[in-house]
């Protein structure tokens, strides 16, 4: 996986008429995890949305991945409550032209066993988050943009995410992560960066 670095040049992002930040310069190389920090309302989610291509910046340039080269995990899980984890992921595979054969292995990896065929509405918050995280394994993509991936996860879950991130970086991928919890740092090339 030879990912190009992600470069932001004098980026300005607004929500409505409120300017969140401007003249932002940032360069993230593949092989590292950028831990995006900042107070509430600083614009972490908005910045991630700009990187994903969901939001148009007011000014500046993003040299980033195309939508097909990035995984987006928003703070919402993108799971329909009436469908099971497997059905939700199968739909995602159909939409993204991914191979649904990997769903079983991905759910195994996230330690979702018996719950995978129950409607998502009956799952716990952590189980839902694990299902959403399983998408990261269904298709190899260079950049992971994760908004609060640890929300609702227990200690084991957080360690699992750290493990996934470490593997991803070792394989030459990069990630930008917002998180209020500290990311487990052993063996993970984390760079902390604060959004002012």
């Amino acid at each position, binding site marked *: 996986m030879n990912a190009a670095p992600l470069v932001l040049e004098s980026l300005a992002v*607004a*929500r*409505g*008429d*409120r300017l969140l930040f401007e003249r932002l310069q940032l360069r993230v190389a593949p092989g590292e995890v950028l831990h995006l920090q900042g107070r509430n309302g600083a614009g972490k989610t908005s910045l991630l949305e700009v990187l994903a291509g969901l939001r*148009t910046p007011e000014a500046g340039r993003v040299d980033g991945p195309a939508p097909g080269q990035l995984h987006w995990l928003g703070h919402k899980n993108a799971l329909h409550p009436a469908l099971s984890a497997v059905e939700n992921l199968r739909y995602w595979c159909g939409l993204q032209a991914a191979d649904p054969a990997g769903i079983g292995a991905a759910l195994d990896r996230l330690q979702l066993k018996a719950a995978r065929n129950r409607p998502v509405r009956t799952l716990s918050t952590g189980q839902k988050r694990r299902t959403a995280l399983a998408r990261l394994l269904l298709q190899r993509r260079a950049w992971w943009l994760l908004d609060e991936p640890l929300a609702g996860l227990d200690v084991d879950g957080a360690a699992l995410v750290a493990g996934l991130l470490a593997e991803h970086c070792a394989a030459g991928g990069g990630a930008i992560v917002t998180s209020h919890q500290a990311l487990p740092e052993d063996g993970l090339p984390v760079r902390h960066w604060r959004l002012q």
Partner: protein
Amino acid sequence: MNWTWFHRLGSPPTFFRFAEKLAPWLAALALLLIGLAGYAGLFLAPPDYQQGDAFRIIYVHVPTAAISLSIYVLMAVAGAVALIWRMKLAEIAVVSAAPIGASFTAVALITGMLWGKPMWGAYWVWDARLTSELVLFFLYIGVIALNSAFNDPRAAARACAWLALVGVVNVPIVKYSVEWWNSLHQGSTLLSVQAIQKPKMSFDMLWPLLMSLAGFYLLFGAALLRRMQNLLLERERRARWVQDWLGEQN
């Protein structure tokens, strides 16, 4: 083609100062023309040989009806500019034009009804042009309602711009379908090339009408500029130039 004037006018402070200078003149000229046209229409123009004095309401009805349609087109054009170039001023123009358009449409509807009473014997007749004017009124109400439902003024304006664009495709279809459905109204008195070459109206009746049309257009221009100024102040309240301008006023 030199487009710098376009970009300069697109900058909120420049536009604001420009509108501040222009709007009073437009308003004064509009009132003058409407006043003159009103006088001429009521006292100088001869009574119609069929409709008597009742026809004189056309000096309000026809201009407002014509302008109500052009405001919708203007709103859609501003919407396209707002969506393509992400221009804040165009967003503000879309949102500002809607209530003015709705008011013009309402005036056209009310004067049409008042005219209908002596002509058809009822305030409301399901006549093709009154009906499509009514639909136009609802289309304006839709834009206003959509705009007020959003918290984020920017997303609101962009949604309104899309609604206006889809609406402007719809307007001629509505007009045509309603005409297909029913036709009872007299043909258009004014707005065709042939009518100007060989006017169906006598010139004594026509010139106050043209004058009132110009006056109402200017009135719309003045109202639009003022509304846009107000919205600009509100949306740019955090900007330096608004603080400076408010400082100058006190």
